């Protein structure tokens, strides 16, 4: 199923929306990696917070969990929060499974954020304040949602979504 998306242009910013057909990408990926689903089925929730204050910092976060059982607090899935305050910071996030949520907040200039999500109930949020930012979001699966806010110039956003029926929540992009 192909998703048709509109391209947005605001100021000097460029947005590229791409569509591609792969389905069950997460299952295939798991088989290729040799991961036993019975192991990760049992994981209730992965939760990672990264705070970096300064310049030229980088963070890389990889989370995997599938078909999580309901936790006592009703929360489940993969949760990531990254806060970077400075210059030339980089954040890379990979999530697969059910109920993924990634939030990146970057303050300063020339920061770079990349989020890749596979599975269902995907949520990505990138907020970048300053100038010269790059934000990339890749989502494989269904029920996708993302919110990107950028201020300053120049800025760049690249978004790729694969699979799903295109009936998910709307894409929100705000560039100031």
């Amino acid at each position, binding site marked *: 199923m192909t998703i048709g998306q509109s391209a947005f242009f605001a100021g000097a910013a460029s947005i590229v929306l791409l569509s591609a057909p792969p389905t069950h990408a997460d299952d295939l990926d798991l088989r290729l990696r040799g991961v036993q689903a019975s192991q990760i089925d049992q994981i209730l929730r992965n939760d990672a917070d990264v705070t970096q204050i*300064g310049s030229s910092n980088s963070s890389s976060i990889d989370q995997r969990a599938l078909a999580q059982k309901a936790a006592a607090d009703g929360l489940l899935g993969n949760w990531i929060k990254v806060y970077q305050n400075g210059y030339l910071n980089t954040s890379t996030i990979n999530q697969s499974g059910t109920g993924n949520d990634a939030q990146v907040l970057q303050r300063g200039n020339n920061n770079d954020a990349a989020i890749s999500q596979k599975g269902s109930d995907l949520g990505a949020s990138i907020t970048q304040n300053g100038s010269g930012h790059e934000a990339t979001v890749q989502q494989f699966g269904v029920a996708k949602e993302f919110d990107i806010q950028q201020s300053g110039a120049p800025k760049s956003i690249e978004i790729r979504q694969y699979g799903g029926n295109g009936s998910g929540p709307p894409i929100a992009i705000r560039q100031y």
Partner: protein
Amino acid sequence: MKRILMMTTSALILSAGTAFAGSNTSAISSYGSSNNVSIDQIAGLSNTNASTVIQGPSSYSTGNSAGVTQDGHANTSTSSISQDGNSNSTSIHQGGVHSTNVSGVTENGTGNSASVEQIGYGDHSSSVGQNGSYNAATVEQNGRDDTSNISQTDAGNHAGVNQHGFGTNSSSIAQSGSSSGNTAGVDQGGFSDNTSGITQTGDYNTAYVTQTGFGGQVNYSSVVQTGSANYSAVHQH
């Protein structure tokens, strides 16, 4: 000059030896450089092992080493080692079946190392504090509920924690001061919740966290880095 003070209640081991039977208690203070202390304690059923080692205390002391091995069944083992000076080393091994193991290490100086191993089905707790640069601390815990705290100040320090227990695993690493070039690594796995917290201040610091599991657990990781050119990697599977 070297002087050694020894106190014991039921058994004393100094510089290699093994204590068995009931409860074991030893306290050793050694002054000077190049002193080696080795303590082996095996407590009887439901009894206790207790060991205290102080080396230094002068900041000019170098090349001291302390090794403690504690074992038993359904017992409580406690070990405390304090070293002042440079190029000192500590090694603690605490085992036992259904035993509670507690260890504390304090090292002040440069180029010191601390190694703590706590195994066996029981609750394990380890605390390592190192003040100085180019120190290294490694903690391995494999029990029921495992807790590790490592605190390091200054630059070029390394901290590594490996926890694979049946219950909850909890690790805290703080590398502070105007330090740089520190490395912190945490590897947690098991059947219950994993919690890791890493705090680093300074430049060129690196933090690695890997959390895995097999049964219904929640993995939580927090990394806080203040400075420049720092790197953090978190893997939760």
